[in-house]
């Protein structure tokens, strides 16, 4: 398959390797060829791939792997480590000035997502108690100022604009304005431009001289191809970038640009745009990204999401109920809604280790995890009376018919849900019984992992 992710390609390769007790140099070479092709298909820049593969290979054919008991695993580990390092090692944050206002300048090609990112960054800073000021310095694209104004209103952040005035003057006046209005971060939204457009690149240099920014962030579309290197190189040479924001990472692009940009511009990727909503700007975690690319799952992100979205109180209540075997359909619905509030299911699945490979093995595709399916389950439960939710055994034929009609499903669907629920309740009973026994008999519950 051509469109398999990078992780899919690497996993295929290493599945073959994993079976072997010992690796010959030939094996490693074959694996490296696959790594190379996969990275190229993922839009990692050609030259960077070359260096990368050479580095991995050097370590792979060395003692480290050949003497290891699980050489296949060892290669995966090396690839992962090198990938994470290539993308920037440790996580990096926004540099704030010791004496406010901090000036952040956003630059990039047309359509990379600068304006949206500006608004997202403003929201992000506000949530940390900062008082940002958005500055509309894109005087070329039609309605760009209006766009920033609308977004500014949505995140409830003031927008500084001076119409079609020279962007250099705008930048100067904006910093003044921030100072006198006690705004501590100034976010400059500059116009999108080609990195080879001298006139416009000079404009950026002038803005830089005038506003003296603490951060110059290059906004890069995660779908960018081989050209990402040229873009990052030119912007870096002219302006001296301090960081990169990778946008549109919520698509299915394999994000090779992320690998390239860091290597070329030498500055860290600070944020990742993960969706269209204005709070979808997340800190970029190179290590997590690397493990995600390799299909090793992203458990940390999942846990963080869960902590942010799941009500602790409710969770405690729930575990109590499970222990006392009082878990009802009502609780089930509750739980379902909490999980959904964490974002699209598919995103969550992609974070679970081994899931991407399981998905591949079964030939499953994204649409098999249909959100609508869950919508149906919700509808069915919501069409029940509170009493029925607490005690599904009372459901008879005519009640089921009513519920099916109310939820727009069929009686079979209602039956299936009830049956599944009963089964999971049984399972929970077993678990809790075992748990109790364990306490008494000092024989702990053994989990299958």
């Amino acid at each position: 398959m051509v469109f398999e992710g990078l992780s899919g390609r690497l996993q295929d390769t290493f599945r073959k390797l994993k079976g072997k007790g010992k690796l010959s140099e030939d094996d490693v070479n074959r694996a490296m060829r696959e790594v190379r092709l996969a990275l190229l298909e993922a839009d990692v820049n050609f030259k960077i791939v070359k260096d990368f593969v050479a580095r991995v290979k050097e370590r792979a054919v060395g003692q480290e792997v050949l003497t290891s008991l699980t050489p296949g695993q060892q290669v995966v580990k090396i690839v992962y480590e090198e990938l994470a390092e290539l993308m920037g090692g440790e996580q990096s944050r926004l540099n704030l000035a010791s004496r406010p206002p901090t000036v952040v300048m956003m630059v990039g090609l047309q359509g990379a997502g600068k304006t949206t990112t500006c608004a997202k960054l403003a929201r992000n800073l506000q949530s940390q108690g900062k008082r940002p000021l958005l500055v509309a310095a894109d005087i070329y694209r039609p309605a760009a100022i209006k766009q920033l104004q609308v977004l500014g209103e949505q995140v409830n952040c003031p927008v500084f604009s001076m119409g079609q005035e020279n962007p250099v003057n705008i930048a100067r006046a904006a910093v003044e304005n921030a100072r006198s209005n006690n705004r501590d971060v100034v976010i400059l939204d500059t116009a999108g431009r080609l990195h080879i457009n001298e006139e416009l690149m000079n404009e950026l240099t002038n803005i830089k001289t005038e506003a003296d920014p603490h951060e110059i962030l290059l906004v890069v579309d995660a779908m960018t191809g081989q050209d990402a290197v040229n873009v990052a190189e030119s912007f870096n040479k002219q302006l001296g970038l301090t960081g990169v924001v990778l946008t549109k990472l919520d698509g299915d692009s394999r994000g090779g640009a992320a690998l390239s940009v860091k290597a070329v511009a030498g500055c860290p990727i600070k944020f990742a745009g993960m969706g269209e909503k204005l709070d979808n700007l997340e800190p970029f975690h190179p290590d997590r990204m690397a493990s995600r690319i390799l299909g090793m799952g992203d458990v940390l992100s999942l846990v963080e999401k869960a902590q942010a979205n799941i009500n602790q109180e409710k969770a405690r209540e729930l575990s109590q109920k499970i222990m006392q075997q009082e878990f009802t359909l009502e609780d089930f619905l509750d739980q379902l809604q909490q999980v959904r509030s964490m974002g699209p299911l598919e995103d969550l699945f992609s974070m679970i280790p081994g899931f991407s490979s399981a998905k591949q093995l079964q030939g499953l595709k994204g649409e098999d995890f249909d959100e609508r399916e869950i919508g149906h389950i919700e509808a069915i439960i919501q069409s029940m009376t509170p009493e029925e939710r607490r005690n599904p055994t009372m459901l008879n034929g005519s009640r089921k018919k009513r519920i099916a009609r109310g939820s727009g499903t069929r009686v079979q669907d209602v039956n299936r849900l009830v049956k599944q629920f009963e089964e999971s309740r049984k399972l929970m009973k077993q678990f809790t019984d075992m748990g109790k026994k364990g306490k008494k008999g000092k024989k702990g519950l053994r989990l299958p992992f």
Partner: protein
Amino acid sequence: MRFLDRFRKGRGKTEVEPVVEAEPAVPAASDETESEISEPSVQIEPEEVTVSDLEPVKKKEGLFARLKKGLTKTRENITEKVEQLIKTSRRLDEDFFEELEAILIQADVGVNTTLELVDSLRQGVKEQRLTEVEDVKGLIKEEIAAIMTTDRDNSLCLAAEPPTIIMVVGVNGVGKTTTIAKLAYRFKQEGSRTIIAAADTFRAAAIDQLQIWADRVGVEVIKHQEGADPGAVVFDAVNAARSRQADFLIIDTAGRLHTKSNLMDEIAKVKRVIQREYPDGPHEVLLVLDATTGQNAISQAKEFYQATGVTGIALTKLDGTAKGGIVIAITKELDIPVKLIGIGETLEDLREFDAAEYVEALFA
């Protein structure tokens, strides 16, 4: 405060609540000039720009010359490297082919297409018993031209009876709105009556952006409020096109990632709305692709094809250093013809895609 009140009064007609706006009006400069500058110039500006934007376009320059100029960077990148390679390589050995592979991959042609291309080149060299590096250049050109020349028609599909309905789709930030403006400009130049539907009701100020372009070109826009149902906008636009006897109706849709199934469902619905009124429409579904995009463009094309039955591709931003090799991969892997290319920022910089000419310009 008095000043703020004055400021608010002055902007009474703007839709956006100007309260947050008010702050910028206080900077150090004198009050009078400031309030003038801060006046929402977005609405006023288009008139001025119309003149300055249309005038400097050099009409006399031939199509080929402009295309060549627009593709200069692309050409420099591929051709120069190939030529350099030909000059520096003395023999047609494996190193030569490997280096050729590198060049094509770096042009975003894609691994599979590159490998096949180089393989068939190898075979060609063997069959024709070529030994001179110089001769290979012609062969590369032929190989790529063979991929690019399809049986499919590269011109826009027209309706038997006007209006011809063109739906424009694509991911965020590829240049849909600009491409629509360029397209409308061309239709207008040809003397056709064109209506544009502002069905991007999602992105902030997308409707304003389209309206400004439409004013510059001088065509009508059918629009609703931001956040309105795009299906409803399209329904109105289709009826307007019918009653006003427009020749072309171009529909601007919101950018969406092809992986978001709910948004892809939405765009499929927009298409159904058109089909309810005009069963043979939309006559053209144009997928706009950014030339800077890497291999993901193929994935985009596939998903949008599935949802909307894409009939043609418009490749934008070819005036950068992006090498546009993705066109080769797309034509090869999908049966969707590239119909238009964007090679600059003025309204005239939209060209019909001509495979032969493209390859020629690439290797001229």
